[in-house]
């Protein structure tokens, strides 16, 4: 099992993702987007960063690069795809996942630790947790506010497509515990092709290595072993 971590110009969490995956015994390699998807790959990470300088909208340019056609085709065939932070923005901009991640309510870049409640433990990315578990992960984004129209959001909730919501340390979801103004505090959603595709704004790869003092995110990356 080799996971391709796709590096775009401006990706900066790509090596973190490789290191975090390898610490879990999952083989991972960096793939430059212009080189295309290697044939033997069995999973894909769209990593965090500032691809193309966040020009136009965060993720907009990378979402339209040729390798994303290959990623969408692979996702159609059931390949696991995880988008993290800028990777989440790329995922939504490329129609892998619903909604949009746009300017934080604060209009500021926010770099802090947040709590997340596991909303659906029946996905590869959350199988390591129980529904209702509270985990702590870092966020680092200026455009992380989940936005989608009300009808679509209602459908996503009815279909159990929300994987994580921002919450406080006790697991209570509230406007005060919503760092960026995301609609219904959504921090991560599954893809339209099935729950083998998911994106989230917080960084599980920055909370996987024991040396960093918090391994709450390891369970998300364990999804590649499912």
């Amino acid at each position, binding site marked *: 099992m080799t996971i391709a971590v796709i590096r775009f110009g401006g990706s900066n969490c790509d090596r973190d993702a490789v290191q975090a995956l390898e610490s879990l015994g999952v083989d991972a390699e960096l793939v430059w987007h212009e080189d295309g998807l290697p044939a033997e790959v069995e999973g894909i990470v769209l990593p965090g960063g500032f691809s193309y300088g966040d020009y136009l909208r965060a993720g907009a340019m990378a979402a*339209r690069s040729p390798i994303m056609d290959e990623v969408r085709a692979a996702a159609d065939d059931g390949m696991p795809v995880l988008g993290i932070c800028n990777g989440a923005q790329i995922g939504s901009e490329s129609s892998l996942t619903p909604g*949009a991640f*746009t300017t934080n309510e604060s209009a500021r870049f926010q770099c802090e630790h947040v709590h997340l409640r596991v909303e659906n433990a029946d996905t590869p990315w959350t199988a390591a947790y129980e529904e209702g578990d509270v985990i702590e992960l870092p966020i680092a984004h200026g455009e992380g506010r989940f936005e989608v129209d009300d009808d679509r959001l209602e459908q996503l909730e009815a279909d159990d497509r929300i994987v994580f919501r921002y919450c406080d340390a006790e697991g209570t979801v509230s406007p005060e515990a919503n760092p960026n103004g995301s609609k219904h505090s959504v921090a991560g959603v599954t893809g339209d092709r099935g729950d083998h595709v998911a994106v989230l704004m917080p960084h599980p790869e920055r909370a996987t290595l024991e040396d960093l003092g918090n391994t709450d995110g390891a369970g998300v990356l364990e999804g590649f072993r499912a």
Partner: protein
Amino acid sequence: MTQFTATVTVRLKTGVLDPEAETTQRALERLGFELEDLRSADHFEIDLEADSVDDAAERVESMAERLLANPTIHDYEVEIDHR
């Protein structure tokens, strides 16, 4: 072929929060200006050659659909002028 300039204006849909516009409004108010509301929009000017206004409009609308706007959060308008 005729030379045209297309103007694409991309706005947030009504009801979508615009934190940058709110921040800009507050900054103007701090400078002592009085205003009721402020909305921001992205504005693109595209020079192109096309057979007709309709042909130019069709191509530019496709550009807006596929890249310049994100249909989840944006509405857009296209205006075509002779150059």
